[in-house]
């Protein structure tokens, strides 16, 4: 970024802070919840796009990574007295049974949640990313299902299907908005860097990239771990937003939502994912109406529960067939682009 862009980005950040302040004070709880969800989607989707869109490696793991981050944060932040209540059937194993982070270490717990998730990403990436083919897809899908199985069965750690309740609600708009801004800033810088170019080169033609001296395995693995890290942070934010975590919180539906977001925004467009994460968060609420029962005059139209996901999955297939590049393709919204939009066409253009 040049100096001008830095200043503009800083201004945008200030505007965002002001917007958050307005939202926090003047919006109702329902709207604030949607905004929080949207910001968490931004973090998770941008991270997911890094591996799927920029590096071109198909992963189905984000829900697994979010679960890892979510459980880690829950176990670290839940007060000890609450732990005794929650784990009344099977006691929680040491050392989590005695550890509770004070609230000012919330950021550290998010960081650790991210690290654990990155570790999970490393675990699946290591055997699969050295192979050509789509083994990453099937292994990451399996991984997420296994996380689900473990969350249900490894009761001394996860409390099984009952989940963990009473997690302190640290997350608010400042956290989600701030971290979303930071994530987009960091990942955009990364994508525009030499490392990002190497990832794109691998996406375009792995053999040619390797012939130009890029170690594809190491580069992909690092990108996958970074992607896992931010997914973990998003998971941690999510559980401290709704103050509970259970195995059904991070199912494949979560990954699917993120997939729709990044495809609609354009695979490979970070800013595209930001825009569509917001669109999706609101669309999800609007489509809730489809599932509700409506009464118009004397007619009653019964709601169809589950119809939302039918619509979304049909939308994804239609998008892929007819509108594969999404809203932004691989292009990014940039300050240059904004300036060009506002300037009149100049003679040399």
């Amino acid at each position, binding site marked *: 970024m040049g100096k001008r862009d830095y200043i503009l980005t800083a201004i945008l950040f200030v505007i965002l802070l002001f917007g958050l302040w307005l939202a926090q004070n003047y919006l109702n709880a329902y709207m604030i919840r949607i905004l929080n969800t949207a910001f968490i989607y931004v973090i998770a989707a941008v991270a997911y796009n890094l591996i799927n869109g920029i590096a071109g490696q198909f992963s189905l793991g984000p829900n697994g990574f979010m679960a890892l981050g979510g459980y880690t944060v829950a176990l670290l932040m839940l007060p000890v007295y609450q732990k005794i209540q929650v784990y009344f059937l099977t006691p929680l194993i040491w050392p989590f049974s005695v550890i509770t982070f004070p609230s000012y270490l919330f950021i550290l717990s998010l960081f650790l949640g991210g690290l654990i998730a990155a570790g999970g990403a490393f675990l699946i990436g290591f055997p699969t990313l050295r192979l050509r083919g789509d083994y990453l897809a*099937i292994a990451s899908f399996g991984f997420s299902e296994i996380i689900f199985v473990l969350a249900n069965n490894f009761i001394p750690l996860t409390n099984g299907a009952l989940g963990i309740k009473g997690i302190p609600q640290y997350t608010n708009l400042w956290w989600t908005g701030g971290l979303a801004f930071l994530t987009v800033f960091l990942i955009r810088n990364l994508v525009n860097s030499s490392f990002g170019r190497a990832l794109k080169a691998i996406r375009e033609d792995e053999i040619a990239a390797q012939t130009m001296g890029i170690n594809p395995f190491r580069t992909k693995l690092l990108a996958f771990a970074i992607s896992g890290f931010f997914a973990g942070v998003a998971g941690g934010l999510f559980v401290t937003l709704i103050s509970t975590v259970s195995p059904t919180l991070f199912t494949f539906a979560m990954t699917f939502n993120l997939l729709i977001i990044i495809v609609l925004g354009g695979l490979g467009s970070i800013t595209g994912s930001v825009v569509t994460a917001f669109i999706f968060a609101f669309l999800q609420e609007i489509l809730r109406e489809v599932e509700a029962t409506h009464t118009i005059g004397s007619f009653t139209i019964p709601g169809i529960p589950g119809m939302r996901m039918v619509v979304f999955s049909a939308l994804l297939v239609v998008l892929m067939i007819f509108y594969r590049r999404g809203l932004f393709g691989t292009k990014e919204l940039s300050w240059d682009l904004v300036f060009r939009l506002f300037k009149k066409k100049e003679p040399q253009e």
Partner: protein
Amino acid sequence: MSFTQFFQQLMNGFSLGSLYALLAIGYTLVYGILSLINFAHSDVFMLGTYFAFYMITIFMLPWWLSVVISVVLCAIVGMTIERVAYRPLRSAPRISALITAVGVSYFLENLGLVVLGARPKGFPRPDLMKNVYVIAGAKIQGVSFWVPIISIGILMVLLYIVYKTKVGMAMRAVAKDMETTRLMGVNVDQIILYTFALGSALAGAGGVMWAAKFPQINPLMGIFPGWKAFTAAVVGGIGNVVGAMIGGFIIGLAEILIAAFFPSLTGYKDAFVFGLLILFLIIKPNGIMGETLKEKV
């Protein structure tokens, strides 16, 4: 564990393995030709059970006829998916086709939840499957006895089709080199459709037998068997039909025997299959029967 118990578990594992094998064939055939993980395959398997369920319960058809109709319907569904969702993306980047496959799979599952209902349905077993046979002192359930026998019969027919018929030869040719095969005058699109039909028919047959073995059916029932069957295809060597069968039996037997020998680990038997997948990808990524594939440079 006594010998008779072990024998019972072995037969149980065989029957489960033969079902994975049936399902794995569809994955391996499609992957061999299009390099595509057909995520929707597991949902065709699920639909197969529902087709048979409705034929038996609503249309009151005899069991064998219901199975035949269900297999045919599955083949049609498989071909439709290929024609509508996959063919338009054949020249697109591979990740697009994969995303579409995930989309189709998720669409079928959620449509199933809406149309068929989320609540599990009890699948009517035929008497044949309910019988108990006593072999060498071991009590063998009808399903454990008949499922492997029927499956192996079907697999024999499949091997015949793939290796001895003209269509089978064309399938193998398309898998080796699509462009050259096209130049030889083979209608590649048609062969790909046939491949989907064949794989989906096997999934349908497997689905019905699965329901006879585990007689609770629901729209999400295909996910785990499908994922394990794909793992079986990888273990056997993706793209290789015989390998997929071997892989299926390995996964089925391993799963049952793990649970039999270590009852406390039953909850983790899926995690074990995952471990096996990772292990194979590290040690023998080409699988048991797979050839070393080299990308053309």
